[in-house]
């Protein structure tokens, strides 16, 4: 199991105050927005704040983060890439 992906699921549930859902119920590849978790534009801003707060990653342009927010897997890959880049 991808530890970062699992951590992200826990943080997303906590940050977005999702009720009646567990990390195990979130598919790594399922879309976070629209279908899947059904997140919206306010949630997108919340995820931007979450990335800065917990991972020190600042997204200045929401378009930059759009591909990253496609799924848990893409978000984990985005964080790894930003952490490994100088």
């Amino acid at each position, binding site marked *: 199991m991808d530890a970062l992906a699992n951590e992200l699921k826990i943080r997303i549930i906590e940050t977005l105050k999702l*009720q009646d859902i567990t990390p195990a119920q979130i598919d790594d590849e399922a879309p976070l927005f629209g279908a899947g978790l059904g997140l919206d534009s306010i949630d997108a*801003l*919340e995820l931007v704040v*979450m990335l800065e707060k917990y991972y020190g990653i600042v997204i200045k342009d929401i378009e930059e983060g759009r591909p990253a927010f496609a799924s848990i897997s893409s978000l984990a890959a985005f964080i790894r890439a930003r952490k490994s880049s100088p």
Partner: protein
Amino acid sequence: MANLVITAASIVTPDDLNRFQFGMRFGRLDSVCQLGLAAVEALGIDFASQPRDQVGICVATDNGSLSTDVEYWRRRNEPGGASPSLFVYTLPSMVIGEIAIRHGLTGPTLCLMGGSDGLLTEAADMLRRDEATACICVYCDVVSALAAETIHLPATARACAVYLQRGVQGLHVLAANDRDIIPLCAKLCT
């Protein structure tokens, strides 16, 4: 003009929130909206069977979004800033939007700040002007522990609601002196 009749009434506190199923996103709402939605749910009205553009929503509150405002202000210097979803609820009339979205209602709306007195009068006027055939009237008020400590107000969290309609049988025919929803709900819900 047909009588204006209250067909349902409710009173809720935070202890009542788990009586209802609001779905995965209920946690995002602030306490005012949660209580307001619960008070409307407790009316037991099937809004799907009502003409959606003929149901008005009138909300009154004493402290509005004050508790959310205080929390937002306290968290403004956190990394990344305060929660964006918290910011949404720094608007006192948000509860109207949440009720309208949940039940698909598109009728007229009104938000009164400064107390519950006059809420029923305004709702009755809305019906008498033929702007709607029914009106959800909600009083909800929250002063969180943090707001109480910050602004030196007594903490509170409560909501009550009535469903006001024209020309039907119901619990109570609205009288001219029924201006304050709080004592009326207390009477109708006991």
